[in-house]
């Protein structure tokens, strides 16, 4: 992240780019990484609802399980920002999310 000089700072130190905190990758805080088992996931939206970072992405990507069940949605993790809190794994009703230790 490059810091602006004082001449570039807007009056009143107003921040002109809404949501520019995305430039800061809180994923670096993570020690445990959530992994979603797409076979087990029942697409209930619980993890998406509870993630404090909004780091569970709901994408319009069809998925067919080996048992033949078809889904319209797929849940994925935004690892740039996921802090690894584990709420998603703790709240998932079918235990489809596993927290895995990050390799250093």
């Amino acid at each position, binding site marked *: 992240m490059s810091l602006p000089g004082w001449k570039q700072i807007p009056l009143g130190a107003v921040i002109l780019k*809404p949501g520019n905190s*995305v430039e*800061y990758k809180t994923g670096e805080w993570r020690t445990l990484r959530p992994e979603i088992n797409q076979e087990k996931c029942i697409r209930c939206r619980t993890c998406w609802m509870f993630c404090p970072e909004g780091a569970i992405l709901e994408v319009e990507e069809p998925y067919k399980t080996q048992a033949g069940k078809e889904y319209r949605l797929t849940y994925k993790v935004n690892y740039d920002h996921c802090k690894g*809190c*584990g709420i998603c794994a703790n709240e998932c009703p079918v235990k489809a999310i596993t927290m895995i230790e990050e390799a250093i």
Partner: protein
Amino acid sequence: MSKPLTVWDLPKDEFLAPGHRMCQGCAAAITIRHILKAAGKDVIVVMPTCCGEITSTVYPQTAWRVPWIHVAFENAAAVASGVSAAIEALKRKGEIPEEKDIKVIAIGGDGGTFDIGFQALSGTLERGDNVLYVCYDNEAYMNTGIQRSGATPLGAWTTTTPVGKVWRGEWRPKKRKDLIAIAIAHNVPYAATANPAFPVDLYTKVKKALSIKGPKLIHVLSTCVPGWRIEPEKAVEIAKLAVLTGMWINYEYENGVYRVTTPVPKRKPVSVYLRLQGRFRHLTDEDIKKIQELVDADVERINKLVGKQVIGPVES
């Protein structure tokens, strides 16, 4: 009454961007996400100094995708009133179209609400200003290092209610002051409690509050990882246990009528909530009995207000 909303009614829009520095597992982040989903893009948010403020706007970055103002610890409600008045004035002058519905929400911590911003809040509620005030209540002054507030519950360890031979955590031997009752005493049209483990209920209440003109207040419990000495992954589970034990009751008040939005036919004993938190680890069975008695009395009070037994007895 309209059909209750479900998780699928929550919009996908995210007005709180990732990259904010709230702790891993911070429930305030969950609460703010859903407040903003309910408000939509036409909102101005006012925030006093608190965790939500310092972590969301680490200069030169902001996590807010809606207009947002940071003000002093004491005056969030007063500034929100000013913003609301300014919107009205600009409409009168024809600079904003009359029909444009711009919402004003103040979001403050318990320190900024129960204690330091209390006078400003009272003014906003008393004058009838068109503002929604939300207090996310992590039950202490967290961002400055876990000092007790007027919202700290009996027995809780904080750095100013330490645990040793003489002090045994928070000492106030009764229920903390009742923010909802205080709001209602100002004759507000709407007041409610909410909880991050029930985001659809929270979303519904914010939507409803914003549809009503005048001053509204929503009080939200906010599990806090370092302040409550809990595991981050348990933040939602513990918030839910607060409701299942009756330590927290989800209800709303609308024009004279009380309604519990999360009925609990059989309560769990308060110990299952307390024992998961390091801030209560020093409590003896005798201490817990006292807390159970406070909760029993509060449950009885709410059941009376509602006119039937919506919160049941402790299951054996």
